């Protein structure tokens, strides 16, 4: 556990953007205005799978107030096979472009087909309704198991299955089948005293960010494109837009506006290239706001999945083998998050025999995107449910069973590498020793469940600049979208190095022309990587400040020591602020620079303890108590760490109990509004209790691991386990909503009567 003492790190200063946010002065994309601005509207497919035979835009173009209409034909001709990086890995340009404006087929209901720019949004919407699209409607396929059958409708005639690393000649909805192997799983199962094997299904769910997607684009007379939008990664928008429009990246500038949530869903581009094309045609800025229905139907939810997990153990609880079959829905284009699911499905355990098969399957739903620890919650739902059942069969405490088999430093992961220093055991110990777990749970139809989960976290490049002001404050320039308080968590790391207060640092998130490349705010990387860039920039400032004070004192810079913001040498002493007032006379501006592409990423384990009560008459589950436990490495700002843990837990609760894309047979989402897509509110939940564990990441200057994702991995399974203990039967399908629970109870009663 962390024993390091800091001045700023670990404190809870008020966030730098707090005043703007609570007074409504923060500028979001929907607030953005420009002189002469037009408004766009995107026409979307009413069909989940259809061939586009013809698009006639003439009536829309003739409509009063319409300035331009675009379709896929307005894209420049390029090599569609070229791979482009969209922030979550590479994909063929044809797919990236096809998801922005459909080519010869629409692949999901809501797929963008054409767009209109007009004098206002109402005219644009009405004119879009005048666009005549002739479709040849095709049969659709909506789940991975159905899409994998030999006679399933094929989405992409050019998609050839990659089987265990090799591209085959087989045209299929299965984009890829991969496998991880350790040891001999059959021998492991043969050595087991107890075996548990279950099948699981999870529904498609959406991140549910409050702020819909929005964008404004101006294709200027000099050929440069400026974009103002809500995004988790301004450089990703720049690079994606440039690739889709076949432009050099230097010709695109992206200004990230404030963001109202993303959780992974605001990494891909959807409307930016379209707005740019409309601006090119009109010579005026074009703004497009995405309606909520389109957010559900046409952006990237997380995959629905079908899974089978089998685990065997000896009587003493030692797990002898584990096997997983994971089939994930990618949506319309390949790229389901089944890869990370395969890498995390047994990550919490030290196993000698493992076999994991994963399938990336396209279906007629929107193209999936990342969502907090993408893929891991689905997988953990399956594994942690089976481990709970194993504990029941063995008569063991479920945390003790997990501790007996827990992954630790040196454990070889199923995908090959060994874990560095990790906090799986420490998280489980904190769960076991918590007041919550030690407290009794009495009452009928009540149950307690636990589960544990893992997310890797990532590194990737970040940049930071620090400008010292004459009053001793420091302006911090960065390129990371601030979703969860990262302005402050980054500023605090600079303040710690400089010996200043958090309030002395003034962070600003700037456009892509004004800072070095910075990867997405995602993968729990921002406090880790951009914080590290700030650390490096602050070290650069300290070095320069030593040189400046050395000139004043006429000593060698090597003799100057700096600690807690005070510079000393040969009996001289000067504080940072006093020295800052004299930087002009000692050589001019002091600008610190930090640019990193760090290694040393530290994965995070998190666990959940949950008490539920199930109403056996209605099937309603009430969360009585919920404790989230997570290894933060080093909690830079504990309140923000707790906020991430609570937010991830609440999203996990919604995923477990209510949320799903409720689909009609023809691929229509029937609940595409926040009224019908039931996310938990504060009224549905108790206070989410938090326990921060700090096993410092030896790979980071302050021990940071990143805390944005691992917290959503375990709630679904913990709740499933709690419901099992409350009603005496196990649910293996998400969401575990009242109809599903009533069906389970009725099935159980029916079985009991028969026996």
């Amino acid at each position: 556990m962390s024993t390091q003492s800091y001045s700023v790190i670990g404190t809870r200063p008020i966030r730098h953007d707090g005043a703007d946010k609570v007074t409504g002065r923060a500028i979001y994309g929907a607030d953005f205005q420009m002189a002469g601005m037009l408004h766009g509207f995107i026409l979307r497919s009413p069909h989940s799978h259809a061939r586009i035979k013809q698009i006639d835009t003439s009536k829309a173009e003739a409509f009063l107030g319409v300035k331009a209409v675009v379709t896929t034909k307005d894209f420049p001709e390029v090599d569609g096979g070229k791979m482009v990086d969209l922030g979550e890995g590479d994909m063929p340009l044809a797919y990236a472009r096809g998801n922005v404006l459909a080519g010869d087929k629409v692949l999901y209901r809501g797929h963008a087909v054409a767009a209109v720019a007009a004098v206002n949004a109402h005219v644009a919407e009405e004119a879009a309704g005048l666009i005549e699209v002739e479709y040849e409607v095709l049969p659709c396929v909506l789940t991975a198991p159905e899409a994998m059958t030999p006679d399933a409708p094929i989405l992409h005639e050019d998609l050839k299955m990659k089987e265990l690393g090799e591209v085959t000649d087989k045209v299929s909805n299965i984009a890829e089948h991969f496998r991880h192997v350790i040891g001999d799983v059959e021998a492991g199962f043969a050595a087991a005293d107890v075996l548990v094997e279950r099948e699981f299904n999870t529904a498609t769910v959406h991140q549910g960010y409050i702020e819909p997607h929005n964008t404004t684009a101006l294709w200027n007379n000099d050929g440069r494109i400026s974009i103002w939008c809500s995004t988790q990664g301004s450089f990703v928008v720049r690079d994606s837009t440039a690739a889709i429009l076949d432009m050099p990246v230097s010709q695109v500038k992206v200004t990230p506006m404030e963001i109202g949530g993303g959780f992974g869903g605001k990494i891909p581009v959807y409307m930016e290239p379209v707005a740019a094309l409309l601006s090119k045609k009109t010579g005026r800025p074009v703004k497009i706001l995405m309606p909520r229905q389109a957010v559900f139907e046409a952006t990237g939810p997380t995959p629905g999945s079908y899974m089978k997990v089998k685990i065997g153990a000896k009587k003493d609880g030692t797990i002898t083998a584990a096997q997983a079959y994971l089939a994930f829905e990618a949506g319309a284009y390949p790229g389901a998050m089944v890869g990370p699911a395969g890498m995390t499905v047994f990550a919490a355990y030290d196993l000698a025999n493992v076999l994991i098969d994963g399938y990336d399957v396209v279906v007629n739903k929107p193209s999936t995107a990342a969502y907090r620890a993408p893929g891991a919650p689905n997988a953990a739902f399956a594994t942690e449910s089976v481990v709970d059942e194993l504990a029941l069969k063995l008569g063991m405490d479920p945390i003790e069973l997990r501790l007996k088999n827990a992954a630790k430093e040196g454990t070889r992961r199923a995908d090959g590498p060994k874990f560095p220093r990790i906090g799986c055991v420490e998280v489980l110990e904190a769960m076991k020793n918590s007041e919550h777990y030690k407290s009794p749970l009495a009452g009928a139809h009540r149950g307690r469940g636990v589960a544990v989960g893992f997310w890797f976290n990532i590194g990737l490049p970040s940049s930071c600049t620090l400008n010292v002001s004459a009053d001793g404050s420091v302006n911090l320039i960065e390129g990371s979208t601030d979703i969860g308080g990262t302005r402050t968590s980054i500023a605090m790391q600079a303040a710690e190095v400089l010996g200043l207060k958090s309030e002395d640092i003034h962070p600003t998130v700037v456009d892509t022309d004004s800072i070095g490349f910075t990867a997405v705010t995602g993968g729990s990387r921002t406090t880790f990587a951009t914080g590290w860039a700030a650390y490096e920039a602050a070290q650069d400032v300290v070095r320069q400040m030593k040189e400046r004070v050395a000139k004043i004192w006429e000593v060698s810079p090597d003799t100057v020591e700096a600690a807690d913001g005070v510079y000393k040498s040969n009996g001289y002493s000067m504080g940072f602020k006093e020295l800052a007032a004299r930087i002009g006379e000692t050589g001019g501006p002091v600008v610190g620079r930090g640019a990193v592409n760090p290694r040393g990423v530290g994965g995070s384990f998190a666990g959940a303890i949950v008490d539920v009560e199930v109403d056996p008459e209605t099937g309603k589950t009430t969360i009585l108590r919920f404790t989230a436990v997570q290894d933060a490495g080093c909690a830079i700002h504990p309140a923000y760490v707790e906020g991430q843990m609570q937010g991830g837990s609440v999203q996990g609760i919604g995923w477990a109990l209510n949320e799903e894309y409720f689909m009609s047979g023809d691929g229509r989402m029937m609940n595409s509004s926040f009224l019908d897509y039931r996310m938990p509110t504060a009224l549905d939940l108790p206070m989410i209790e938090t326990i921060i564990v700090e096993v410092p990441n030896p790979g980071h200057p302050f021990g940071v691991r990143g805390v944005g994702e691992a917290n959503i991995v375990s709630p679904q399974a913990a709740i499933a386990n709690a419901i099992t203990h409350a009603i005496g039967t196990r649910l293996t399908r998400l969401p575990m909503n009242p109809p599903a629970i009533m069906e389970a109870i009725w099935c159980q009663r029916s079985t009991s009567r028969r026996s």
Partner: protein
Amino acid sequence: MPKVYIPALLRNVTDGRAEIEVEGATVRQIIANLVTKYPGLQDRLLDNGRLRPNISIAIDNEITPLGLMEAVSPSSEVHFITAIRGG
């Protein structure tokens, strides 16, 4: 000599071998020496001489941002793993 761990997906081009000791002071040299013995690895790992974007290199259990240019010591473990991003 560095030890290269071959993931299950690549073993069909390494005669089923899961661990191979290969000479090389950088990842690039190691892959070049591997390809000499197992030519099928060339296209599976590289695209126009660059590491395929869906692959990350882990040296001694740590993902390296330097990819092919990363230095490797004689006692190192080298892994080819799926590139991870996040939400």
